[in-house]
């Protein structure tokens, strides 16, 4: 077992175990903490694949931003000690059946498909200069249009969130 395979096994085990705990834990604050572990392990997987910039974004924006936002909203809307009521068996059974069948079908398809083995390895172009230049370039492999669209989306989301959460006088 090479070091890469070992690291992949660790990250993958953390992701699978803690994502299952995230959706089954009955204390909501613990579920948020387990979600944090899942997100950090995903960032580790990006580091394993040598996407350093993406891993940094994952750690700061997801693990740092979204999880803190979720924990704040948990503290605003529920008491820390409360346990969620367990879902009924009539609800668990169909959901488990559907997801199990879907997962088995998808994994069987993945294992059956022959992915190309020999890939011409070019130089790795993941340094920050290349990313910055492609994000604002309008030529081939340039992402100026999606970049602008995503910035307008973020602006709209920010304005919408402020207006929604504002106290209404009525």
């Amino acid at each position, binding site marked *: 077992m090479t070091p890469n395979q070992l690291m992949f096994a660790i990250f993958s085990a953390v992701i699978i175990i803690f994502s299952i705990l995230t959706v089954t834990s009955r204390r909501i604050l613990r579920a948020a903490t387990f979600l944090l572990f899942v997100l950090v392990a995903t960032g580790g997987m990006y580091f394993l694949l040598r996407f350093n910039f993406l891993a940094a974004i994952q750690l700061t924006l997801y693990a740092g931003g979204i999880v803190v936002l979720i924990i704040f909203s*948990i503290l605003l809307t529920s008491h820390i000690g409360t346990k969620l009521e367990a879902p009924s068996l009539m609800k668990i059974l169909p959901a488990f059946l559907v997801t199990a069948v879907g997962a088995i079908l998808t994994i069987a398809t*993945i294992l059956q498909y022959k992915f190309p083995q020999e890939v011409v390895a070019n130089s790795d172009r993941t340094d920050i200069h290349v990313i910055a230049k492609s994000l604002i370039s309008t030529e081939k492999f340039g992402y100026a249009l999606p970049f602008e669209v995503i910035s307008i989306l973020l602006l709209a989301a920010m304005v919408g969130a402020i207006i929604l959460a504002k106290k209404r006088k009525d």
Partner: protein
Amino acid sequence: MFEGVPLTWFLITGTIMFFVGIYGFLVRKNLITILMSTELILNSVNINFVAFNKILYPGHLEGMFFAIFIIAVAAAEASVAIAIIINIYRRLVNIDVEKMNEMKY
């Protein structure tokens, strides 16, 4: 194959994470836990994008850029969803999806 790790391993990890997220989405009743399941689903898709990019098309960056855009969309979605959740909590004093049957204010 990326330095000994085959592509299918990444895809299987992503698949399991995706379906665990869907299970949580179907079973949970609290709105915030449903939001957490959505984050799991988005994250699993990101793993697939990045693995495909690195292993099948090294030298390109499409998968990484779409992962970045998905992260931005997830951040926008989380902020708006939490604003809605807090607004609902202020009006109805609980955030249980089964006790919520009016969206009018």
